[in-house]
C-alpha cells in the first residue's frame, strides 16, 4: 500500500517511550494490586456453583434447572417430600389434606406464614395461584391443575379444592407446586389479560424482584456472573420442626456462582471458592476430590431413566421378538461398570429402583447376569423360533461363535440397516458410547446396526416431531417420585407429533390401566396397577431401560456442613434449611 504523503496523520507512534512504560507499569500494577485484594469476608454466606446461567426469575418461564434451583429458595409449595420416606409432608400447609370422597373435595389448612415483604400468606394466594395456572394454561403446570373445578376459601387459613373427578396424584403432584403471591402477580395477570397474547405477556414478563415465602429473598443478579439471595426474616419455618428436623436456615445468604465448565467448578470446589456444586458430576472426578480432606462426596440414587427407545410403528422394531432379542443382547452390567465406572444401577424397569415405593422388581429382567455367549445364544434362539433366518448364523455347526451375516426377517425380507440415534459425546459421553457398544452387540447377532450421534435438538426433532427413526438412546435425568409419567410415556394418546410416547407404543390394556390408575384413590389398588403397568411394558419392551447413574455430588465442608442426602442428591430444599456453619472454622 502506498500513501500520498500529503495526507499523513499526526505521528502517533513517534517512538513513544513514555507510552510503552506506562503500559508495562499498568500490567505490573494489576498483578500486584490484584494479588493484594483477595476475597473479602463472606461470613455466613453459602456459595453454590451452578453449571449454567439461570434463564429467568419469572417462575412461569423457568423450565431450566438453574433458574428452578434459585426459585426453589424463593417460592414454596404446600407439601414437600420427606427425605427418608419420600411421602409428602406438610410444608406451607399445617397438616395433610383431608379428602372427602363424597363431595370430591380436599381441605387444606395453612400454617401462619408471611411473604418476604411482610404481607401475610393466605388461602387467597393459593386460590390465586391455581386460578392463574388454569386461566393462562401455563405449560408444565396446567396439566396438574386440570381436574380442579373450583376453589373455596372459607377463611384466611383454609382452602377447599373441588375436583372434577377423583385424582390420585393430587397430593403428590398438584399440591407440591409452588405458591405465588397474589398481591404481586394479580396486576401482572390483569395486564396480561388485556394484552393481545396473554400467555406470551406472562412468560416474557421481566420479573425483577420476586416476592416469595422461602428461606431466602432475592437481592441482586449480575447476569453471567452471579446471583445473590439474602436470608428472609419472615420465613415461616425458621425455628419450627418439620419431619423431625429443626428448620433454619442457619446461613445469612446464598451466593450462586455460574461456572462454564465442570472442570473449573471442581477446581473452585477444591480451593474452597464454592461450598457446593449444584449438579451431578462425572465419576472421573471422585478420586481427585477425595484427596482433599475438606471435601465430602455424596453418592445418592437418582430418580432417572436412561433407555433405548425403539420405533414400534414400523419394521423392524414393530416385531416384539426382535425387541426382546435386542434387550437380551444389551449388557447393562458392562455399561454400568465401564461407562459409569460402577457408580450406577442396571435398570430393568421403567421406574428406577431408587424410587423404592413404586419400583417393580418382578418384571422380565432381560439378560440379567448372563455372560456374552449365553445372551447371544438366547437371543439367537428367540429370533430363530420367531422365524428369522441367517445366511451365516451367529453360531457355527460346532457351537462356535462366528460373525453373523445375512439376517432375514420372518417374511423373508433382508434386515435393513438399523440406525441408533444418540446425543453427541460432548452432551453426554455415556449415552453416546452406549450407542456404539449396543451397535457392536447387535451386529454380533447379525442386525446391521449403526450408532449415529446427533446434535440434541435435531435429535429430539427427529424423534418427537418427524418420528422418523429406528431406535434412539435418551434419558430423563429427573423424574418425579409419583410415577404418573409411566402413563404419559406409553399411552396411545401420546403417540402423536410432539407427544411423549416416542416409540409409538399402543396397547389397550395398558391404556385402560393408565387411565384407571389416575383415579384410583385407594393407594393399595393404585400400587397394584402401577406394578402391572411396569410388567406389561417390560413384556413388550418398547423402551429398553439401560441404567441409572448415581447422583454424585461434592461439598466443601470446611465452612459449612449438614447436607441432607436423599433421592436425587443433596441439592434439595431440606439441605438449604439444615446446612450450618462448621463451628469455629474460617478459611
Amino acid at each position, binding site marked *: 500500500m502506498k500513501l500520498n504523503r500529503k495526507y499523513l496523520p499526526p505521528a502517533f507512534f513517534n517512538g513513544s517511550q513514555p507510552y510503552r512504560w506506562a503500559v508495562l507499569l499498568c500490567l505490573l500494577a494489576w498483578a500486584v494490586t490484584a494479588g493484594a*485484594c483477595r476475597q473479602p469476608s463472606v461470613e455466613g454466606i453459602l456459595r453454590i456453583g451452578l453449571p449454567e446461567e439461570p434463564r429467568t426469575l419469572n417462575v412461569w418461564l423457568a423450565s431450566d434447572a438453574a433458574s428452578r434451583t434459585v426459585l426453589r429458595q424463593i417460592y414454596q409449595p404446600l407439601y414437600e417430600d420427606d427425605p427418608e420416606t419420600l411421602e409428602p409432608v406438610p410444608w406451607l400447609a399445617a397438616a395433610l389434606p383431608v379428602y372427602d370422597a363424597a363431595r370430591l373435595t380436599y381441605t387444606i389448612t395453612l400454617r401462619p406464614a408471611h411473604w418476604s415483604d411482610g404481607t401475610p400468606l393466605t388461602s387467597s394466594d393459593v386460590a390465586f395461584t391455581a386460578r392463574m395456572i388454569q386461566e393462562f394454561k401455563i405449560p*408444565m403446570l396446567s396439566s396438574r391443575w386440570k381436574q380442579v373445578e373450583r376453589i373455596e376459601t372459607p377463611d384466611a387459613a383454609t382452602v377447599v379444592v373441588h375436583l372434577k373427578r377423583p385424582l390420585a396424584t393430587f397430593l403428590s403432584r398438584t399440591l407440591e407446586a409452588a405458591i405465588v403471591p397474589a398481591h404481586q402477580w394479580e396486576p401482572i395477570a390483569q395486564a396480561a389479560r388485556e394484552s393481545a397474547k396473554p400467555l406470551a405477556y406472562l412468560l416474557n414478563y421481566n420479573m425483577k424482584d420476586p416476592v416469595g415465602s422461602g428461606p431466602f429473598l432475592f437481592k441482586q443478579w449480575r447476569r453471567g456472573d452471579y446471583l445473590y439471595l439474602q436470608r428472609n426474616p419472615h420465613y415461616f419455618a425458621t425455628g419450627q420442626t418439620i419431619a423431625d428436623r429443626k428448620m433454619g436456615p442457619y446461613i445469612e445468604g446464598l451466593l450462586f456462582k455460574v461456572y462454564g465448565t465442570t472442570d473449573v467448578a471442581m477446581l473452585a470446589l477444591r480451593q474452597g471458592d464454592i461450598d457446593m456444586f449444584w449438579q451431578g458430576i462425572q465419576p472421573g472426578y471422585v478420586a481427585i476430590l477425595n484427596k482433599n480432606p475438606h471435601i465430602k462426596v455424596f453418592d445418592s440414587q437418582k430418580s432417572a431413566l436412561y433407555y433405548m427407545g425403539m420405533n414400534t410403528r414400523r419394521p423392524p422394531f414393530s416385531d416384539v421378538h426382535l425387541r426382546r432379542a435386542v434387550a437380551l443382547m444389551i449388557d447393562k452390567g458392562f455399561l454400568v461398570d465401564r461407562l459409569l465406572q460402577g457408580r450406577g444401577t442396571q435398570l430393568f424397569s421403567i421406574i428406577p429402583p431408587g424410587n423404592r415405593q413404586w419400583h417393580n422388581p418382578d418384571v422380565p429382567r432381560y439378560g440379567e447376569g448372563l455372560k456374552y455367549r449365553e445372551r447371544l445364544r438366547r437371543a439367537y434362539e428367540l429370533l430363530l423360533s420367531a422365524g428369522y433366518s441367517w445366511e451365516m448364523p451367529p453360531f457355527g455347526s460346532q457351537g462356535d461363535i462366528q460373525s453373523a451375516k445375512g439376517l432375514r426377517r420372518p417374511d423373508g425380507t433382508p434386515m435393513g440397516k438399523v440406525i441408533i440415534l444418540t446425543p453427541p459425546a460432548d452432551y453426554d459421553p455415556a449415552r453416546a458410547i452406549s450407542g456404539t457398544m449396543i451397535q457392536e452387540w447387535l451386529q454380533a447377532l447379525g442386525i446391521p446396526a449403526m450408532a449415529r450421534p446427533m446434535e440434541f435438538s435435531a435429535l429430539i*426433532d427427529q424423534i418427537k416431531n418427524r418420528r422418523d427413526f429406528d431406535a434412539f438412546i435418551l434419558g430423563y435425568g429427573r423424574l418425579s417420585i409419583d410415577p404418573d409419567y409411566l402413563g404419559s410415556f406409553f399411552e396411545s394418546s401420546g403417540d402423536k407429533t410432539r407427544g411423549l410416547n416416542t416409540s409409538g407404543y399402543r396397547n389397550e390394556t395398558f391404556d385402560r390401566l393408565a387411565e384407571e390408575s389416575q383415579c384410583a384413590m385407594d393407594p393399595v389398588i393404585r400400587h397394584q396397577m402401577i406394578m402391572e403397568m411396569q410388567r406389561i411394558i417390560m413384556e413388550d419392551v418398547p423402551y429398553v431401560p439401560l441404567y441409572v447413574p448415581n447422583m454424585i455430588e461434592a461439598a466443601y465442608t470446611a465452612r459449612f456442613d449438614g447436607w441432607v442426602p436423599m433421592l436425587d442428591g443433596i441439592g434439595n430444599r431440606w439441605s438449604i434449611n439444615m446446612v450450618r456453619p462448621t463451628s469455629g472454622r474460617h478459611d
Partner: protein
Amino acid sequence: MMSLNRYILRRLIEIGISFFVILTLLFFLFHLAPGDPVARMVNPNLSAEDEARLIAHMGLDLPLGQQYLRFVGNFFTGEFGVSFHYGQPVAEIIADRLPNTILLFTTAVILSALAGVWLGKIVAWRKGQPLDTAVTIGALVCHTLFLPWIAMLMIWLFGYRWGWFPITGMISPEIWIDPHSGWASKGLDILYHMVLPLLTLFLVHFGSYLLIMRSSMLETLGEDYIYTARAKGLPEKVIRDHHASPNAALPVITSVGLSLAFSINGGALTEKVFSWPGIGRELVSAVSYNDYPLALTCFLLIAAVVLAANLVVDVMYAFLDPRIRY
C-alpha cells in the same frame, strides 16, 4: 470531492442491500432448519398441547412469510424481539453483554497493536540480522497459535499450576456483593480477571501486527523521502521514528479497525473458554438453544459492524489514494 461523495453514497446503498440480503438469508436459515426452541425441553410434564402453546407464544406458528415480514418490520423499527430463552428483550441482553466484549477486545487489540508497531519498527530496521529472523519466526508462531488451545494452556499454567490469576468469569462475586467495596476494588477485580484472556489475545494478535508493521516499514524504507532524509544526514533513529514509522503504521491502523470489528465474532472462542460474559459466548449459546431472536440479532449486529468497518476502510483508502475509484 464530488466524486468521493458519490462514491460514498454508492457504497452506502450497496451495503444496505448486502445487509438486507444477509438478513433475509439468515432468517430463512434459522426458520427452515429442523428443531425448534421447545425441542430442548424434554420433560414428562410438558404435554404436546403445552408445546404447541409455547410454539404459538413464540410466534412460530404463523406462516413463514408472515413471520418474515413481521421480523423485518420490527427489525428496522429497532424492535429486536424477545429472547425465547431468557424471556427478556433482545436489546437489553445485548446492551448487557456488549460492553464486556468491547472492554476486553479493545484493550487487547490496542495493547497488541502498540507492541507490534514498536517491535515491528525495530526489526524492520535490522532486516536480515539474527534478531529480525528470530522475531519474525516468533511472530509467525504467535500468529498461528490455535486460540482456544493457548487459552486452555494459559488457564492450566497460570490459573491452575501456579494459581496466579483467576481462570473464569469477569468478576469475583464476593467482592461485588460486599456493600463496603468501592468502585476501585471492583475495577481492580475486573482488571485482575482480564489478565489471562488479555494475555491470550495479546499473544495471538501481536504477531500479526508485528508482521504487518515490519513489511510496511520495509516498503516505506524504499521511498524517496527516506533517501532524502538520509542524504540530509539526519540521525538513523530520527529517520526511523519520525519519518518512516508514522507512514508505515497506517496499514496497522486499518488492520486494527478491521480486527476490532471482527473481534465481536472471533471473541466467541475466547469468551467461551474463559467464561467471559460477552456477546460471542451469548451467540454460541443462543444458537444451541435455538433462540432465534437473540442469535439472529447478535449475528446481524456483527454483520453490521463488519460492513461499517469495511465502508470506513474503503472510504479512507479512496480519500487517501485518489487512484482508487471504481
